Every structure is written in structure tokens, then in C-alpha cells.
């Protein structure tokens, strides 16, 4: 589990790289930390790995305090750093074996884990090749395998699928999802919003060291983009005239073949909207939620933070 309160880091007595970050990620949950380059994601992760000491606030990772138990934290956390950080003259198997030793694994455990991870990430055939000869994606997979070598209870992953081909990205996402189901606590720093959307249970948007927004995807959408919108599509142009809408629904836009509603409580209101439309013999083809992406939430939040107009 990861718990932080007012976690802050100041550099050179004048620049706050992270300012008052409060998070709570439980085992079996994934938090995606989103933000621009230099927003404070890496500094936050480094504080959670006990690499940087907080200037203010506190953090507990896997039950340990980052300032009091740095060694215990480093033993319990698997970190995928921004740069893959591979030793280019080591082979894949040597590299995993080295980090297995660093994490104090027995020879049998090292062999088993290394072979499993190499096999899982499709690197078994390249295991005896020097990592300098690997492609970008293979390097990233080997780095991820390193982060998992000691089967950590907490994972801090910085851009886990960057530079990977679609198949490999899918593989890594599946692995992350599998790790969540085995009750790992995971934080992902990413610029890949689709990945965050598909993986994360919670999302936090960080800007200039401060958390602007955090919550589940639905909570963020509701908070930033307003209530959910639904669209009714007709088979042919249809004039509904003055439609009497139930309480909690508002007409947002209309065209010849569609109507768009903003709905506060869909479970209660939607059947009544559909009833209203069908009672007017509207040639209804579909009635469904208008898809809203994390990207919209992110871009709107960032635009507001920077004081510029958000162009949807």
C-alpha cells in the first residue's frame, strides 16, 4: 500500500518540485500519475522509493516510512525508471541474475524468476545476447523484468510501455493487470492516456508539483466535463418539437437525426426520455452514452491550470 500526506520536495531552497501531494493507493489498485514533463512525477516516485527525502510531509510504502526505513522500502518496491538503465555489455540473463543477487534472492529463485520473466516477455531466445544488441522495446521489457525480479508488493512504473510495439505494449498491460489482481499496489507515471484509461483504478493529474485532480475515471469526467451525456439517433430526420423532458435531463444539442441530452441520474431518467421519444413515434435507432475520453479531462484540466481556453 502507498500512503502519502502533504508530500513535498524543494530543490535549492526555492523551487518546489513536488508540493503537498496526498495519495492513497491500496493493494490491488493502480494509480496513474499524469502530467507534463517536469510536473513532479519522477520526483514523487523517487521519494516513494526513498531515493529523495521529502522536504515536507510523509509517505509510507509497503508499510514502511520513506525516511525511517529506506532499506526496507527498496527491498519491497519494484521500480521501472524513466530510462531503462540496462548495462549494455551484460546479457539479459546475466542482468536479471545480477539484480536477483542485489535483491538477495537464492540461486534457485534467481534462476526460476529470471527464466520465467524472460519467457513471459518473449526474451528467452535473446537471453544470452548482450542487452546492447536489443531493440528499444526489448530493452524496456528487460527493464520491466528487472523491476519484477524480486516479486515486489509495490510497483512504481515510469512509462512502462514507452518505445514498445503494440503487441509488447499489450503484453505489458496484461502483466500489470495480472499484478493488480494478485494484490500488488501499483503507480504508473505515463503520458499514454489510453493506457491510463484502460489500466488505472484511480487517476491523479499533477501540474507544477501539485495534484490538480484525483479520483476514479468517472469521477474525473464528471468533475471536469460535467454530467454524462446521452445521444438519441433517429433512422431519418425527425422533428420532436417541444419535448417535455423529465427532471434531471437537459437538451444539449439537436440535429435532424439526433438529440443530445445531459443527464444527472441515467438509471432514473433515461427510461423516461426513451419513453417520451417513443411516445412521439420517433424512429429511434439507438440511445447511448456519448463517449468521453480521459484525454478531454486531461487537456481541459491542463488548459484551466495554464489559464488558456480549452478547445474541445
Amino acid at each position: 500500500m502507498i500512503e502519502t500526506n502533504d508530500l513535498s520536495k524543494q530543490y535549492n531552497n526555492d523551487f518546489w518540485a513536488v508540493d503537498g501531494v496526498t495519495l492513497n493507493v491500496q493493494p490491488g489498485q493502480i494509480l496513474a500519475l499524469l502530467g507534463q514533463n517536469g510536473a513532479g512525477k519522477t520526483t514523487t516516485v523517487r521519494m516513494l522509493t526513498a531515493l529523495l527525502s521529502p522536504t515536507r510531509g510523509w509517505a509510507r510504502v509497503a508499510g514502511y516510512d520513506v525516511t525511517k526505513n529506506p532499506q526496507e522500502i527498496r527491498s519491497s518496491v519494484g521500480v521501472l525508471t524513466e530510462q531503462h538503465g540496462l548495462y549494455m555489455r551484460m546479457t539479459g540473463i546475466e542482468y536479471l541474475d545480477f539484480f536477483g543477487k542485489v535483491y538477495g534472492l537464492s540461486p534457485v529463485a534467481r534462476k526460476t524468476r529470471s527464466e520465467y520473466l524472460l519467457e513471459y516477455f518473449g526474451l528467452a531466445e535473446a537471453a544470452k545476447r548482450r542487452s546492447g544488441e536489443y531493440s528499444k522495446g526489448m530493452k524496456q521489457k528487460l527493464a520491466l523484468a528487472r523491476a519484477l525480479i524480486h516479486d515486489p508488493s509495490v510497483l512504481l512504473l515510469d512509462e512502462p510501455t514507452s518505445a514498445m510495439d503494440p503487441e509488447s505494449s499489450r503484453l505489458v498491460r496484461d502483466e500489470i493487470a495480472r499484478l493488480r489482481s494478485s494484490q500488488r499496489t501499483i503507480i504508473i507515471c505515463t503520458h499514454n492516456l489510453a493506457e491510463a484509461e484502460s489500466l488505472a483504478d484511480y487517476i491523479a493529474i499533477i501540474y507544477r508539483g501539485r495534484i490538480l485532480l484525483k479520483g476514479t475515471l468517472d469521477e474525473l469526467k464528471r468533475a471536469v466535463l460535467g454530467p454524462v451525456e446521452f445521444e438519441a439517433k433517429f433512422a431519418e430526420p425527425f422533428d420532436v418539437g417541444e419535448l417535455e423532458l423529465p427532471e434531471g435531463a437537459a437538451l444539449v444539442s439537436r440535429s435532424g437525426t439526433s438529440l443530445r441530452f445531459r443527464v444527472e441520474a441515467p438509471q432514473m431518467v433515461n427510461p423516461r426520455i426513451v419513453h417520451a421519444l417513443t411516445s412521439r413515434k420517433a424512429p429511434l435507432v439507438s440511445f447511448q452514452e456519448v463517449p468521453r475520453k480521459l484525454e478531454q479531462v486531461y487537456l481541459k484540466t491542463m488548459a484551466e491550470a495554464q489559464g488558456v481556453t480549452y478547445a474541445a
Partner: protein
Amino acid sequence: MRRNLEAIWLVARREFTDQFRDWRIVVPMILLVTLFPFIADDTTRQAVNFMNRFGGDLILDNLVPFAVLVIGFFPLSFTLVVALESFVGEKERGTIEPLLSSPLEDSHMYLGKLLVGITTPLVFSYGSIAIYLFLISRRPVEFPSLYMLALIFLLTFAHAVLMVSSAIVISVQATTIRAANLLASFVVVPVAFLLQGETILIFWGNEDVLWFAILAVTLLAGLLVRLGLAHFRREYLLGREIDTLNFKLIWRKFKERFVGGAHSVVEWYTRELPVTFRELKRPLMIVTGLALVTVIASYLWVVFNVPHYVNLTPEIKNDIRTQLSENITRLSSLGEELPAHLVFYNNARVMVISLLLGLISFGTLGMTVFLGNMGLIGGVLGAANLVGYSPLLTFATGILPHGIFELTAIFLATAAMLKAGALLVTPQPEKSLGETFLLSLADWFRVFLGLVLPLLAVAALIEIYVTPELIKLAFPFL
């Protein structure tokens, strides 16, 4: 213990493997290490021929030990790159973060890298020396004794530890490999000078004198290792990306420390300076203790050993007394020949030099200057005893009147210098090496400007205008 050794070895073994897989490191090293002994052998042959024709036995006798020392140093200087890039290289390649995120302790990483940094140059150094010794064994020159060879091997080892530990300190502090390589001059050049000093010891000194060199270099190397360990922090390696010289910030920090919370000179003297003075309690005790031991040892050495070298017959003693009485008659005009401000300037300059020496050697060289002065006092008192004057009276009239101020000033400045040197090799969790250095310097200047300079000024006036009169009063028979 075993776990620690295993962790250190783990880091070291990876480094060994890594560097020996890089032909760009291995091939030049092997070529240089193999070629240089042959060049040195040929130079030895030509030097021997030259000296056999034109003379120069002193050089001829010590040529081989000298060459061995140089051959040992040569591989150290170019394999230093391994140590120089140990941390900063990993930082630039981005491989340091996974290592720092691991449960390895700081000392495991530091000592592992130090082990590789020392072993690689030493292997090449000893290898080079072995080739050279084999080559010269076939020549008609005197082969150095095993004792001499052992001393040179030890000295080479001490050089390796000194250079590598300095290089690793640089590697931890530097932000780029380029900066680290530039800073390498501050390692290679001083050690090259040191080598020249040791060469003088080999040519003109006794073999045993080399032990002092070994001891001094080992002490300095040990302090450098301690400095490196004290200031090695994971945060430091990751926290800084770009180094810029911020003179404003440097001056602001220095001023803040120097002035403290004082708003006036009086407040500074009454509130701030006592704080610094209290912090000097322990270094002052050490300095005082060492000074006492040195004065007594020097006094006893002169009293008991000088008679073995100089036959102090009554005639010789009379001659010395006559010379002294001539000197004492000139004391009345001392103020004209040696104005007080020159004495003040000289003493102040010695204090600053002592500080600079102390800062580059973590207090050791500064202490050497101080103890040298103390040894001189003991020696003068011992000499006074030998020629028949009371050492106590000599001290009370010739040293004490101005010494109350001058010695106090010297003791204070030396204690502050020792504290600054010691702080550099002590872990400072919240401060960087540069910050520690700056704050130590500010503390030293507090003592220097607030206490030492005023005391030295008073001492100079007394030394020139009061002490001579007291000596004349105390020794009217001269």
C-alpha cells in the same frame, strides 16, 4: 560482515566484468602497460651507459628504484578513468537509478566501486613493474633490494588508493564525465609533485625515510576514502542535473553563516562569536594537547640528542653566549629593522597558508605547520638549556609576553582549521560537500577576523616593543 562483503564484491564483480568486456578499455591499457617497461628499460640502458662514461654514482645506484616508482605511477594515471567515471558515468548512461533503487547500501556501492578502481590500476601497475624488473635483471645494473622493492610496492599501493579515492570523490560530485575528466588534473598533478618529492627521498635520503612518505600518503588516502563515504548520498547523485556557479548564493550562504543573527559588531562579538568559540572546545583541546606533547618531545630531543652531534665544550658555549649578547644589544632597534606590521602580516599570512593546507588535506598539513612551530619552541627552550640558560626564564621573558596573544591566536586558528578539515570528512546528512566546505570556511573566518587578527596585532606590538626590553631585564649579564 559477510553479507556486506558479498554485496561489495557483487558491485565490484559486475564492474570488473563490464570493463574487461570493453576492448576500448582493455586494449590501450595492455598496450601501454606492456610498452612502457620496454621504453623505460631502454632509457635505463642509455642512462647507465652515460653515467658509466661521465660519472654519477648517486644517480646510478638509485636509478632502478626511481624507474620502478615512475613505472608504477604511469599506469595509475591513465587507468584513473575507470574510477573517474564510476558514478558519473553510470549517471550519464542512466544505469545508476536502478542500482540506487535497490536495497544495496551506500557503502556497498561506494566500496565496490573503490575496490575496482584500486584493483585495476594496481594490477596494471604491478604488471608493468614486473615486466620492467624482468628486463633490467638482464642488465649490468644494481638490482634493488627486496626491502626497497617492498617499500616501492607499498608506496605504489598508497598512490593508487590516494588517486582512486580522490577520483571517486570527484565522480560522486561531478555531474558529467567531461567535468570529472577535467577535475582529474587535480588528482594527477599533485600526485606527480608528490612523486618528485619521493624521488628526492630515494636519491638523497635513507630508504627508511620512505616509510614517512608511505605513512603520509596512506593517511591522506584514508581521509579521502572517509570523505567519499561521508558525502556519498543517493539523493546527491540524482538531485542535481546541472552544476552552475551561483556566486550570489555562495556569498549569501557565507554571509549568513559569518554574520549569523547579529545586527551590529557588538552583538556579533557578544552573541555570535561565543557560539563558534564553544564549538571549538574539542578541537582546541586536541590542538593544545598535541602542542604540549610536541613542545616537550622537541625539548627533550634537543636536550638529549644534540650533545651527540655537537660537542658543547665550555668554549663553544661561551661563543654562543657572545653571539647572543651581540644580538641582544641590537634588540633595542628591532622596531626599526623589523616593524611590528611586518610581523603581524607574516603571522597572519602563515595562518591563511595553514588554513589552505588544512583544507586540501583535511587538517593534516595545517597541523603539520602548527606542530612544526611548536617543535621550534621546544627546540629553542632545549637549546637555551644546553647553553646554560633557564628554559623557564627564557620562555617567561622571550615567548610568553607576546605568546599569550600570539599563541592564543595560533591555537584558535589551528583549532578552527582542524574543525573545518574534520567536518569535511564527517557525514553531514543535510549538506552537500560544497555547502560543508563553505560553512566551515565561514566559521574559520569568524575566528580569524574576530579573534585571531586582533590578537596577532597586539602580539606583534608586544613582540617588537616589549619582549626585547623584558629579555634585556631578565638577562642583564648578557
